[in-house]
């Protein structure tokens, strides 16, 4: 960097040099733009703003918290509840005070501290450390759960499997939306194709999970290409609408093709996966029998957990690898500028189709895993809301970021489940508060807040796929978002 600045100034003509020197002279010393507030004024200011905020909240919530009307026999019953009103005003006062005192009026931006931390740990960037930590946790999770939380291990393990399924789907969609920049609102179609491929092959031809898995992936990839062709010429919002329609078409066909798919009744009796032919059941020839263990139903969950973990890691590995291959670089170039791609001799048709096919293939893998885990599938499971959740995971995590998808999946899928059990909130809102009723509300609010805080997703920087000397992450403001965003 030092080199580049010197050469740039050497290139400049003399007049400009002198001008810029004068300008620099005028601004010598610390930038005098903002006086750093002293502690006294800071405290006063914080108290004042907190007071105003508290006053506003007091007025606004007067008729929500202080006076309450309940339906009673023969009309309405007015009750007075000063306690919750005072608590609400107190929260507003304290929150505003803390924000003003520590965040808004700090001597330097709070972010500055983080930048220093990030710079100090350049060799071990925070993303890398976090990634390795998460991987280690993921690898040992079943045993951690069994030893630490023996009472809840099955529920939590099942939840982990669900989260990992969404991580895998998010990574698959990330190829299409994050890397190639093609907004796909019908990703669930490939999930459905994978699930039904496996279910139909298994029930009709008596094939096992491991044989069907690659076939399901191939079928889904084929459907990816079939979707790819009609949308090749579409851009922006039109692409999003057509993919949305495609997702619905698949679901409606599954619902109405009664003879083939069982229609709304779905498909029952999908076989469970086996470990080299060993079933996870009671009795002769089972996993526990073979290894001389005592049978426990948790063994099957642990097995399923490791299958989806392996599939997800495969998705990640292949994606990371492809990013450094010409095809992955062409995806990102396509997201940046399609016309420039064509001017460089890149067949953008093939690039788009490979993106759709690769993304769809991983969706298909995840779909067949879903089918084998549930043992039963029906079109109910493949509605638009699934596509929306997967897309939300990718967008919330940060387009193109693998780590972001993991964090977003944990937050979104884990968060929805967590809110179901948040009985602690009853201490604030009263004993009548039922967290399950408010969970979607709280969840929606949390998402809005995250997007306000980080508009380009949790991990929005881009890592270059090739490095000459120094690896520099690229800020989100420079990276194009592709079509339809």
């Amino acid at each position, binding site marked *: 960097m030092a080199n580049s600045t010197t050469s740039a100034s050497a290139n400049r003509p003399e007049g400009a040099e002198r001008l810029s020197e004068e300008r620099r002279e005028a601004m010598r010393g610390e930038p005098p733009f903002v006086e750093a507030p002293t502690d006294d004024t800071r405290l006063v200011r914080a108290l004042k703003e907190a007071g105003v905020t508290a006053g506003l909240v007091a007025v606004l919530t007067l008729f929500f918290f202080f006076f309450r009307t309940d339906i009673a026999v023969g009309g309405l019953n007015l009750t007075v509840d000063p306690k919750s009103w005072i608590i609400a005003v107190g929260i507003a006062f304290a929150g505003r005070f803390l924000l003003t005192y520590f965040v808004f009026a700090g001597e330097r931006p709070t972010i500055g501290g983080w930048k220093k931390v990030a710079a100090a740990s350049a060799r071990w960037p925070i993303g890398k450390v976090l990634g390795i930590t998460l991987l280690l946790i993921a690898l040992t999770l079943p045993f951690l759960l069994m030893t630490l939380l023996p009472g809840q291990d099955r529920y939590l393990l099942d939840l982990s499997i669900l989260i990992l399924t969404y991580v895998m789907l998010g990574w698959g969609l990330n190829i299409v939306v994050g890397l190639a920049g093609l907004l796909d609102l019908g990703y669930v179609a490939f999930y459905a194709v994978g699930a039904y491929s496996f279910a139909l092959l298994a029930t009709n031809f008596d094939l096992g999970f491991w044989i069907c898995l690659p076939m399901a992936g191939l079928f889904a990839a084929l459907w990816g290409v079939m979707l790819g062709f009609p949308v090749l010429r579409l851009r922006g919002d039109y692409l999003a609408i057509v993919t949305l329609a495609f997702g619905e078409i698949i679901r409606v066909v599954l619902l109405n093709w009664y003879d083939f798919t069982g229609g709304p009744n779905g498909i029952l009796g999908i076989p469970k996966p086996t470990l080299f032919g060993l079933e996870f059941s009671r009795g002769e020839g089972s996993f526990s029998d073979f290894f001389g263990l005592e049978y426990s139903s948790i063994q099957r969950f642990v097995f399923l957990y490791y299958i989806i973990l392996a599939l997800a890691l495969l998705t990640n590995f292949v994606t990371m690898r492809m990013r450094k291959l010409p095809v992955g670089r062409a995806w990102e170039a396509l997201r940046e*500028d399609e016309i420039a791609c*064509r001017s460089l*001799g890149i067949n*953008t048709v093939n690039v788009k189709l490979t993106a759709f096919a690769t993304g769809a293939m991983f969706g298909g893998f995840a779909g067949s895993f879903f089918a084998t885990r549930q043992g039963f599938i029906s079109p109910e499971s493949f509605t638009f809301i699934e596509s929306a959740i997967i897309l939300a995971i990718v967008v919330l995590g940060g387009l193109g970021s693998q780590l972001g998808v993991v964090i977003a999946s944990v937050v979104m899928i884990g968060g929805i489940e967590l809110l179901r059990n948040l009985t602690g909130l009853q201490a604030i809102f009263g004993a009548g508060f039922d967290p399950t009723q408010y969970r979607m509300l709280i969840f929606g609010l949390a998402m809005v807040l995250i997007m306000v805080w980080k508009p380009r997703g949790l991990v929005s920087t881009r890592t270059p796929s090739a490095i*000459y000397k120094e690896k520099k992450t690229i800020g989100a403001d420079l990276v194009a978002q592709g079509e339809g965003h």
Partner: protein
Amino acid sequence: MNENNRNWAVDPVLSVEHLTMRFGGLVAVDDLSFDVGRGDITALIGPNGAGKTTVFNCVTGFYKPTEGRIALRREGTVSDAALAELTRGGQQYRRADDGSIFLLERMADFKITEIAGVARTFQNIRLFGGMTALENLLVAQHNELMRASGYTIGGLLGLPGYRRAAEAAKEKAIEWLRRVDLLDRADDPAADLPYGAQRRLEIARALCTNPVLLCLDEPAAGLNPRESAELNTLLKYIRDEHGVSVLLIEHDMGVVMEISDHIVVLDYGKKISDGTASEVRNDPKVIAAYLGVDDEEVEEVERDLDVATAHTPVQGGAL
């Protein structure tokens, strides 16, 4: 001017013949014919709206011309009879050791770059802004690397053949970055580079596709005089050391007059002049087009010019 200097008539790399491009009722390019000599720097000039960029878009396949033939002779010489036969036969191109020929008006835009070897830059720079300078040049080597990676399969398995090819591609990219004086910015995102550097990077990116013909759309637009001079050096280097023929659109007459071997002047989609820099500079039609003189006054200008040149020879930069 000596006839022997007319390289474009003897050994053309690109022949545009009777090119017409209509957009609805508007005729952007009208029956235009010109040749681009192999190893020449050819400039396409003309007032705003003369149809220069339309010609470019036809040559690089971004537009399909309404009429006309655009033939590229990649190597060797091809007889006119062979060209006529190819045109009648309905093929897109013919590859042979004694001379390959490509009919660009029949080919898809990316094929023109991939197999015919025509690369281009854009009037409004089109870099991959979120990718580093190095990555930009690697994307340009896509087709070569795709073959080396066994269409991704070999690359996924990490075969040594691909690793060697990837190293070579990086070497080539670094060599071009050094050549355009951007090596110390190799790891910076392209959108972060200053304007002049982005122009140079776009030229380097086009050259990474190994073109025989490089089409530059206003490469000196927005450059300061020093950067323009550097651009001239770069273009001469490309022509002399790499044997790449250059076709450029340019408004900066300093650049055009200094480096062009051949200048074609367009006005209202028609060719009004064609020749060396000194021929074009003294052409009354060109002066009239640039100064905005009515058709009847052209002769008047011609007469004035004859008087002027009789006394003092016109120096460079008269336009």
